[in-house]
């Protein structure tokens, strides 16, 4: 199966439509079960630890982690992976410091907990400013990521993509509350975990399931400069593009310190190779 980025792809559009229908279905189902503030904010305390873990994992595997880390690795090589470590390390710290007071007091938000012992108004204003500042930066990046992804996959206009994603997100949070939010995230987490595991498995399969063999391919040579820019992938990318066009790349060592790369591309169906 071939796919071209930027062209509408029937499978991708079908999956996207399916996920929107599923999200809205969960929202309708959840809104019928949401009757009290406890339902809206805390899903009526009915979510089990495992379900909540999956939902948090769904939050974690966002556009920032998927597109952001993939983009960083594309731009700066495997060094980009250290970004994902910072994401992960924040979670245990949140659990050590905040989870228990939140559970003990039976409150819904961090601001509720702090406001129980301190003056309500300034604490809530401070918490709102903090939350809005984080959301502004975080959400803008997420929406740009989602909009661009949908534009690339389906060829939808960027503005339309952002509006569709925004409306679906608002709908499930406002109407479905925490029950819908949790279940939408659980569905997303299971889909992403399954998809990423399959992809990782398929990539590793080409290296006999040995990750070391995968990384060894991108090792810098002994004499290369340690801080040289670039990925070390340039020639490899050139080769894959040229081979797709039935050409070939050859390396010739002419003299002791000279190396020549010969790129051959066929000009037409019958013509002989034209060397560049």
């Amino acid at each position, binding site marked *: 199966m071939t796919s071209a980025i930027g062209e509408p792809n029937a499978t991708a559009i079908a999956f996207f439509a399916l996920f929107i229908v599923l999200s809205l279905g969960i929202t309708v189902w959840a809104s019928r079960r949401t009757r009290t503030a406890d339902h809206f904010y805390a899903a009526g305390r009915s979510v089990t630890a495992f379900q909540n873990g999956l939902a948090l994992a769904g939050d974690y595997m966002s556009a920032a982690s998927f597109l952001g880390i993939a983009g960083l690795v594309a731009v700066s090589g*495997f060094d980009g992976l250290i970004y994902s*470590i910072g994401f992960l390390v924040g979670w245990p*710290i949140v659990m*050590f410091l905040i989870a228990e007071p939140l559970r003990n007091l039976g409150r819904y938000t961090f601001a509720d907990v702090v406001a129980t*012992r301190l003056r309500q108004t300034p604490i809530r204003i401070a918490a709102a400013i903090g939350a809005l500042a984080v959301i502004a930066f975080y959400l803008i990046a997420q929406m740009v990521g989602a909009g661009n992804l949908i534009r690339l996959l389906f060829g939808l206009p960027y503005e339309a993509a952002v509006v569709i994603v925004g409306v679906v997100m608002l709908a499930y949070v406002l109407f479905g509350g925490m029950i819908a939010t949790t279940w939408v995230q659980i569905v997303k987490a299971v889909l992403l975990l399954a998809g990423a595991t399959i992809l990782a498995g398929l990539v590793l399969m080409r290296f006999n399931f040995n*990750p070391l063999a995968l*990384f*060894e391919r991108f090792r810098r040579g002994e004499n290369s400069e*340690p801080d040289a820019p670039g990925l070390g992938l340039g020639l490899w990318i050139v080769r894959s593009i040229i081979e797709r066009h039935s050409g070939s790349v050859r390396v010739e060592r002419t003299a002791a310190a000279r190396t020549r790369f010969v790129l051959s591309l066929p000009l037409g169906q019958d013509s002989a190779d034209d060397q560049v």
Partner: protein
Amino acid sequence: MLWPHMSNPTQTVDPTLEAVSAARWRMAILLTTTMMVVYFGFILLVAFNKPLLGTPLIAGLSLGMLLGVLVIVAAWVLTWIYVRWANTHYDASLRSLRS
């Protein structure tokens, strides 16, 4: 006492409850500090000693990659320690306080 240094003087607090709460804060701060030291130690090495992290250990594996994986493993291990401690010690002492 919910947060440290925030006890309410008009309220008398059961000394056992105070001890349980203090133990939880010690645990939380110990684990948070460990996580911070591990993470920022790694990030500082990335920032200031790249050649060291680039040292190859075996073909395909550099010291930096190994340490990066170990930071992730450390996050799991610390989480496991906290959950185990909360389930066996903390929740048990809270239950005995309630009864």
